[in-house]
């Protein structure tokens, strides 16, 4: 998709100013997601589970080339066609080839963040192929013509009222239709699509090297349908999705589900081993897996941030993030938002495109606290901020003030004069100062101690 991360601040301001309903809807949804997650962690030994899962992913990533080769062998033995893709353009050309070979005119899709990252829908539509998103939330935003605003709930920024109006226009449902009525309207339109599409496209939550298993977690059943009804199934799988062993799946699907929605496990988990076999009454004739790099090998080489590749895309860090909660995902201007988006953006897109997002954080560390695979997200955000500053990307006022502070801090006399000067400023002037002014605009004025800390330290207790 088109990346607009550089305008984060302007987009965030615009969302808050022009669409106040978004903040309300996003806070409602994320607080509920986080409450469910917290309860679900509380039911199990979450610390032990998370340490285990972090090592499962760490093990696979630190042996990634070997496990990818093993996965490729098993997939091929299972009758799956394996493709490798370095860039989005490579993925598009594989998809075009497969679609042409099977005479595909209509595609049903399961929710896949990777497909959004790669701009798959636009590429297929450019080939004259109809693309239908089938996850209910994805279907809603496809009709709105919007990108997803959350990893798990792509339409959480939209209220029931918004969707009632949309469906009234598209499906002729009444303006006061219940969520059940709206879901029923979507179901019947999408059922028709499932039964007529020639190809299903999905992502993949895990790819097991030992058995060549593609595992997918969901709640609606649309991924089950997209992978079993059409004659061709194509899965887009980031190379970081590999786990070593069949026995890793049980723990990974449970922990991902608990972190994402608070469920013991998602309602449906598909574990796919290839096309329909002799004697099986249904299933696809052909299954393709596209292993996608698109910047991931570059991240793997980064000593400080490679562990972000452990991410299982549960959305827990978005739900708990005080910055994400204010605007939802669209302000971030990219497919991944929230703390993980702010770490992946510079990692996958480079500092120039993604370097502003690490500043969209209060560095409170709540993201790190909830991450099911223990990615030290707030430390990575700091790392990227430091790199952005070193690359001269900090906002001008911040750069000037920080250099002034650094100069003063190195010269005690200058520091004392500066500090004394700030103490003497009338509060009306303080309110106009950069940084201090914006702090004072939302917080009560801090009563400043008359004598400075250094003075009091020297004079001793009074």
């Amino acid at each position, binding site marked *: 998709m088109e990346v607009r991360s550089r305008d984060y601040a302007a987009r965030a301001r615009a969302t808050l100013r022009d669409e106040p309903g978004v903040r309300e809807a996003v806070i409602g949804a994320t607080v509920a997601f986080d409450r469910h997650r917290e309860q679900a962690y509380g039911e199990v030994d979450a610390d032990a589970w998370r340490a285990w899962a972090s090592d499962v992913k760490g093990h696979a990533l630190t042996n990634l080339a070997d496990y990818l080769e093993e996965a490729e062998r098993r997939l091929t033995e299972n009758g799956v066609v394996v493709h490798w893709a370095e860039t989005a353009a490579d993925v598009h050309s594989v998809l075009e080839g497969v679609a042409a070979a099977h005479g595909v005119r209509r595609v049903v899709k399961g929710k896949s963040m990777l497909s959004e990252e790669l701009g798959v829908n636009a590429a297929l539509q450019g080939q004259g192929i109809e693309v239908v998103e089938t996850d*209910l939330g994805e279907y809603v935003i496809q009709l709105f013509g919007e990108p997803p605003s959350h990893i798990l709930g792509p339409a959480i920024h939209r209220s029931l009222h918004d969707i009632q109006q949309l469906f009234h226009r598209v499906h002729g449902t009444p303006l006061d239709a219940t969520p059940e009525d709206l879901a029923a309207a979507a179901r019947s339109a999408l059922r028709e699509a499932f039964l007529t599409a020639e190809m299903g496209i999905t992502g993949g939550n895990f790819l097991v090297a030992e058995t060549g298993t593609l595992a997918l977690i969901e709640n609606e059943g649309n991924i089950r349908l997209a992978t079993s009804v059409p004659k061709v199934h194509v899965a887009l799988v980031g190379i970081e999705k590999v786990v070593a062993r069949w026995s890793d799946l049980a723990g990974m699907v449970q922990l991902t589900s608990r972190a994402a929605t608070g469920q013991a496990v998602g309602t449906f988990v598909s574990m796919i081993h290839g096309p329909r076999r002799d004697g099986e009454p249904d299933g696809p004739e052909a299954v393709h897996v596209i292993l996608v790099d698109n910047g991931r090998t570059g991240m793997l080489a980064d000593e400080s941030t490679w562990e972000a590749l452990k991410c299982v895309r549960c959305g827990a860090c978005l739900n708990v993030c005080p910055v994400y909660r204010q605007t939802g995902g669209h302000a971030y201007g990219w497919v991944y938002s929230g703390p993980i988006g702010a770490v992946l953006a510079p990692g996958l897109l480079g500092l120039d495109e993604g370097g502003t997002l690490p500043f969209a954080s209060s560095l409170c560390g709540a993201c790190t606290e909830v991450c099911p695979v223990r990615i030290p997200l707030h430390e990575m955000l700091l790392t990227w901020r430091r790199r952005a500053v070193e690359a001269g990307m900090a906002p001008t006022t911040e750069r000037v003030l920080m250099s002034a502070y650094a100069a003063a801090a190195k010269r005690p006399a200058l520091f004392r004069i500066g500090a004394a000067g700030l103490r003497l400023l009338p509060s009306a002037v303080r309110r106009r100062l950069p940084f201090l002014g914006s702090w004072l605009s939302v917080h009560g004025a801090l009563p400043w101690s008359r004598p400075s800390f250094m003075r009091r330290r020297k004079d001793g207790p009074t």
Partner: protein
Amino acid sequence: MRDGILTRIRSALAGRQAVAHPGVFVGSPPSGPAIEAFADRFRAAGGEVERFSNMDEAGDWLDGFEHAFEGVAAGADVPTELATHLPSRPAREAPLGVSMARYAAADTGSLVLDSHGGQLPQLLPPTHLVWVRADAVVATLGEAIEAARGDLPSALALHSGPSKSADIGRVIVTGVHGPGRVVVGIVG
């Protein structure tokens, strides 16, 4: 393309300490008997559970249950003792789908279904009846997955309740794409 990616990975990892595999996941096995724990979890997720001590008892219950439906799409691996007397319909038209589960896992309330008998009866009809043998109900998902290892069909699927979504107005709606009603019959 492939070799380029693998070469970049190997060079990215040069000198990086490999993380040891942490071993088999332990999880949280239920404290009580597996069948009761499974039934509790499955019901909590919105499913229905019936318990029969033998095939005859299950068959008698089925005679009553099937009256509500005018046709069925049944998996090819459903034993004849547990088959309905309803006329067979293609899965896309059938009001009832019937399948045989390979295992059920108590800790997650999951049925382990496979593609040997067909996947469409598990997915397209609005009501799904799933049979499982009492001795195939195990304590944990880890055990069920391990038990399936020897025979992995083209698709193995966990079904842990009716299809659901909260994507519209954060209200939970069932039967969005898959079956909105799932009934499990545990036999034996």
